[in-house]
């Protein structure tokens, strides 16, 4: 097992290296001189060549790209992601301000997706080809097609503007504003983010369960007269949980994409919205830093899923 983990870990290193090269190159190839952005757009016309050179010197962008790359990568290892071009605050500080909102949104969304998606999938797989199954599948197909922002509009229009149950937008911290306020504000974003994953999880759970239920050992369990409930909980669900683990790993990755939209629609001060704003402002250090953070966490999440997979299914270790 430890040999497998080590081998799997070593495979992530080249991937992370390429991730950093891609991130760095995108920003190097982007048009526009960061020094000009720091000096304030049009003001560049009035700045003397010497002033511009000073700024470039201070930012380190007069060095050759290779040197810049290693400076930047070295900084990443000690948690120094550079400074925002506008506020001159450090990127790691700015990001740390936004983590809570993003983590709250992503986890609430996935929580709702699991809470409703798993039972739906189990029910549909168990009662295959009945109306329950068909209803769940219709929901799964619909939930997958509805774009997050449009769903959000409809939810806001119905529950906030017409019924007044939830606030239109904003975010409240679980720790400083208390759980009640937190839940009131997070409810609609969590549903927006969760519906697509709910559909995915329900679908995956169903098909995985259907496959397992057709296995010989389930027929054996039935023929020796075990209660359906015991067959389901003891024999089928455990075997069916394998593909579900993988899909949950995928869902976390996709949730980051989803949270960009959700945070923008609901004006939640998180990393996704920060990223969109940074792209609009061409604030390169923030874009680079967030891309590295998201990609690195994805790579390690995948690693964790693979290890969990090998742990659950010993066959994986030897392939």
């Amino acid at each position, binding site marked *: 097992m430890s040999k497998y983990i080590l081998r799997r870990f070593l495979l992530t290193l080249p991937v992370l290296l390429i991730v950093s090269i891609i991130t760095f190159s995108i920003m190097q190839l982007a*048009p526009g001189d960061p020094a000009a952005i720091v000096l304030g757009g049009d003001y560049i016309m009035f700045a003397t060549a010497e002033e511009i050179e000073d700024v470039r010197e201070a930012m380190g962008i007069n060095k050759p790209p290779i040197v810049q790359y290693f400076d930047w990568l070295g900084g990443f290892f000690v948690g120094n992601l550079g400074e925002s071009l506008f506020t001159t605050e450090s990127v790691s500080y700015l990001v740390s301000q936004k983590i809570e909102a993003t983590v709250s949104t992503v986890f609430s969304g996935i929580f709702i997706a699991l809470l409703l998606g798993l039972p739906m999938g189990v029910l549909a797989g168990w009662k295959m080809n009945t109306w329950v199954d068909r209803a769940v599948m219709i929901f799964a197909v619909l939930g997958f097609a509805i*774009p997050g*922002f449009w769903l959000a509009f409809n939810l806001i229009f119905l529950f906030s503007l017409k019924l007044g149950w939830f606030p239109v937008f904003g975010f409240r911290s679980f720790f400083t504003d208390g759980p009640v306020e937190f839940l009131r504000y997070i409810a609609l974003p969590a549903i927006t983010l969760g519906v697509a994953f709910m559909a995915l999880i329900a679908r995956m759970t169903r098909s995985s369960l259907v496959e397992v239920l057709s296995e010989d050992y389930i027929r054996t369990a039935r023929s020796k007269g075990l209660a359906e409930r015991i067959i389901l909980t003891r024999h089928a669900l455990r075997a069916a949980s394998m593909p579900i683990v993988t899909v949950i790993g995928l869902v976390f990755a996709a949730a980051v994409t989803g949270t960009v939209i959700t945070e923008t629609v609901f004006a939640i001060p998180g990393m996704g919205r920060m990223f969109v704003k940074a792209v609009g402002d061409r604030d390169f250090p923030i874009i680079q830093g967030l891309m590295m953070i998201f990609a690195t966490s994805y790579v390690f999440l995948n690693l964790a899923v693979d290890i969990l997979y090998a742990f659950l299914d010993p066959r994986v270790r030897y392939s």
Partner: protein
Amino acid sequence: MTISRGYNPNEIRQAKGTAYRVWTQFSRMMKKNPNMIIGFIILLSFTLLTIFADFLVTHDPVSIYPEDRFMPPGSEHWFGADNVGRDVYARVIYGGRVSLLVGFMVSVFVTLSGLFIGLVSGYTPKIDIVVQRIMDALMSFPTLLLALALIAMLGGSVWNVIAVITIVDTPRMVRVVRSSVLTVKEQQYVEAARGIGAPISRILFVHIAPNTMAPVIVQATYFFALAILTEASLSFLGLGIPPEDPSWGNILSLGRKYLQQAFWIAFFPGLVLTINVLAMNLVGDGLRDALDPKLSRRA
């Protein structure tokens, strides 16, 4: 596996004529999978609607009618009018042109590049090691974030959006192609081709490629839907298609500001977008069941 049967079943089928063959195929699919046909009909009618938009809309999509500002849906403006009095129906139909163009071009480009990279990489282990790490790295970025960063580099325009979504989605197609190449290349007919000295290009494109097509075609329809959603997301965030050209994402983005006064600005483009994505997914699911029985059992 018996290959020689003494006759060629294709010849017999061909004797009855192509039209007959297409029709029997179609009616068999219809019986087996009505959902797919529904999806196909929706897509086809919507495509025709956008192609013949010039004759089918009642207003010009960019003309401003200040006296009609925020007019609710009715006989004058079927989907209502927006904040400067433009006809939302016309804008949604013309926006469909952009969205469907993006979706179609992306699925074509993703298929071509995915096939090429996947075939070469799956067939030659030495290239595979390097290419797969690059693909893994590209897939480590959340799709929308990578698309946004590339847009920051290239700037927003219809063709840049197509290019960006193609780059983001290609690694996922490569993975699909590669995994079928890995099984196909072990088949005896590939070995036979290699044995008689066929060049690599012939083995890849004549012998292996056609046998990987089933999952590729299925994925291409999903990428069509995904590309339309990604384009809408980018434009919605104000970083995709420039606001002058109507696109579903653009109109939605505008409608967001006026949700309270005029919900119809955001409602209709979103509805049309959802229906189209749904139709594409239905077609994709149907194709998967028809072409790839192995996959349909699992998902």
